[in-house]
């Protein structure tokens, strides 16, 4: 159109497919040859052939789209029945129990634990921290043990140096 930026468009217009009427679906070379062949016999067969080409191109696009689309509604859904749900829950819980048991056994082997898990934590925490009798008991026992250890002496029974192999 004379615009300084329209040189490419004018170039395209010389090729034949530049404007808004350009077909998005290009006919294949075979159909082009048929069109050219039919053009030599008249304009009416040419339009019929073009329509047929469009129909074939559209049907090909439709088939390709249909191949790419996954029909979700056609997939068979697997409904979990109630008894199957219960069976699975039982199976999973038994597996978890076995795994936890093996893990606890491994923990006991590798790390000697003084205490095990406390299931009723609130009851333990709400109880008295230590009774007076237990307090006195551990005090007495500790004192007695310390006194007993002070009484530990090495009793000399045999000679420290023994002649070996000498008659």
């Amino acid at each position: 159109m004379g615009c300084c930026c329209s040189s490419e468009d004018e170039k395209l217009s010389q090729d034949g497919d530049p404007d808004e009427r350009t077909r998005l679906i290009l006919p294949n070379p075979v159909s082009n040859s048929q069109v050219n062949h039919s053009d030599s016999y008249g304009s009416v067969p040419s339009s019929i052939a073009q329509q047929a080409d469009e129909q074939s191109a559209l049907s090909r696009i439709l088939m390709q789209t249909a191949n790419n689309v996954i029909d979700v509604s056609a997939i068979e859904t697997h409904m979990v029945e109630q008894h199957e749900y219960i069976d699975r829950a039982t199976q999973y819980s038994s597996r978890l129990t076995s795994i936890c048991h093996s893990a606890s056994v491994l923990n006991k082997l590798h790390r000697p634990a003084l205490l095990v898990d406390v299931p009723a934590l609130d009851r333990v925490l709400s109880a008295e921290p230590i009774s007076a009798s237990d307090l006195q008991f551990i005090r007495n026992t500790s004192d007695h043990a310390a006194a007993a250890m002070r009484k530990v002496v090495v009793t000399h029974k045999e000679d420290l140096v023994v002649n070996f192999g000498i008659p």
Partner: protein
Amino acid sequence: MEEALDKVLDDTMNMPGVTGVLCTDKLGLCLGARGNAPAHSSGLIATLANHAKALEANAEAPPIVCLESDSGNILIRAKDGITTAIYKVPSGP
């Protein structure tokens, strides 16, 4: 040589509610164990007593550590370098 300590351990085991008793030195060497007190836990027991003593550095009396669980209690006290641990069932209120 250690008859006195063995007697203390045996007497403690005969007390009601006691399920185990253990004595260890401050380095974790097990000096004697009775009942369900595992001998290999002597190092942990000595460490607990040492840490409790470090927390109460200015206390005159040695601290008493009481580990509570649903299955029983563990009472730990260190005196003159000897740590004693008593395993017993929880006493009633």
